[in-house]
């Protein structure tokens, strides 16, 4: 995401203070050809359906986004004040490329699109704190026969 050089000095300084320790494990898994995979999106953009509970300032929970969702049904309650939401309102695919996945399926690039996708709010916590939530999502994704996930930060 974004070049540090494109950010303001105060923002760059803040980001570079963050400790990003390497993970203990190196889970480099191989699998079926892409054209046979079932793909889901997991976004940290704080997206959810309007009817769902908004994300709180520090939130380790997740929201479910059905693949059939209409763009106008989605809202974004990410706690960061550092990016604008206008692009997302113009075109949901800017952060949640659900139409693009459907096109890649039609072209035969991927096998299929998952029935359910997931969203978390990616600020205010450290990676290890969100691990239980991600393990739960992994279980749900397996039940949907998903074998490829596109993790999309914002």
């Amino acid at each position, binding site marked *: 995401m974004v070049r540090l050089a494109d950010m303001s000095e105060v923002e760059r300084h803040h980001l570079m203070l963050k400790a*990003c320790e390497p993970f203990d494990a190196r889970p480099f898994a191989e699998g079926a050809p892409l054209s046979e995979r079932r793909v889901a999106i997991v976004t940290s953009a704080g997206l959810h359906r309007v009817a769902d509970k908004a994300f709180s300032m520090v939130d380790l929970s997740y929201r479910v986004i059905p693949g059939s969702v209409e763009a106008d049904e989605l809202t974004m309650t990410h706690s960061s004040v550092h990016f604008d939401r206008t692009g997302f309102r113009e075109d949901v695919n800017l952060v949640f490329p659900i139409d693009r996945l459907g096109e890649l399926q039609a072209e035969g690039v991927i096998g299929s699109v998952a029935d359910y996708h997931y969203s978390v709010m990616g600020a205010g916590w450290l990676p290890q704190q969100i691990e239980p939530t991600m393990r739960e999502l992994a279980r749900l994704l397996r039940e949907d026969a998903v074998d490829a996930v596109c993790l999309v930060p914002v």
Partner: protein
Amino acid sequence: MREHTEQMQLPRFLWVPFELGRPFGAPDEPEFQRRVLRSALELLERKDGPVVLEDFPDDAPAYTPSEAEEASWACPIAFHPAAEEHPELVTATLEEMKRLAPWHALYVERRGSAAPGASGLARERVAGLLGELANGEEAPEVETAYAIQEWLRLGCDDLRTWYLEAAQGQPGRGSASELRDWFWRDTAAARLIGSAATALLTHPDRILQVLAGRALVPRDYFPVLMPSSDPSLWETEGASR
């Protein structure tokens, strides 16, 4: 950030050079978005791990304004900031909203709908509550089930989103960073948010202090909107962006 990803040694990662909030580059650019997505998914077929970190080679396509839009773009939001005319920020913000309302209506006409509010509060109400907080009221009475830190954050987001939608109803079309700078630099609403945030930095509730120091005003606008605050005070706590 690419630097963070290198440190964390993730198994498969496509770095993209786009603005925050725009991981697939630009809205209404399906071909470009598809290239980004395909580039990311194709990393799944790579076998040369344990760490595959690729850079997407292209910047996001820039919006090309028409000649007429170009002409108006030199001053994309051609208002005299209401805050220059009104010493009182709530009044100034309400006046500003009246001026922007026709542009917001045009945005809704073009787009089909406005963003649904997340706070459940009308924008005029949010402005009033920000005024109360700025004046030192510690716990304004609010008709919501949300805790103060949540309705305040969501209400400020709703207000900002409405302004940015109104700005997009005008002729011409600013980039994300131009719109961002317009809101935070030129509007009475941003000054009102800054005033409330400044007051909250010394609120007895620590959660509200942290909210004010992190999640109401962008750090690069602290010197303008929260001049008495020191952003470095909020840099070492947790992982907030």
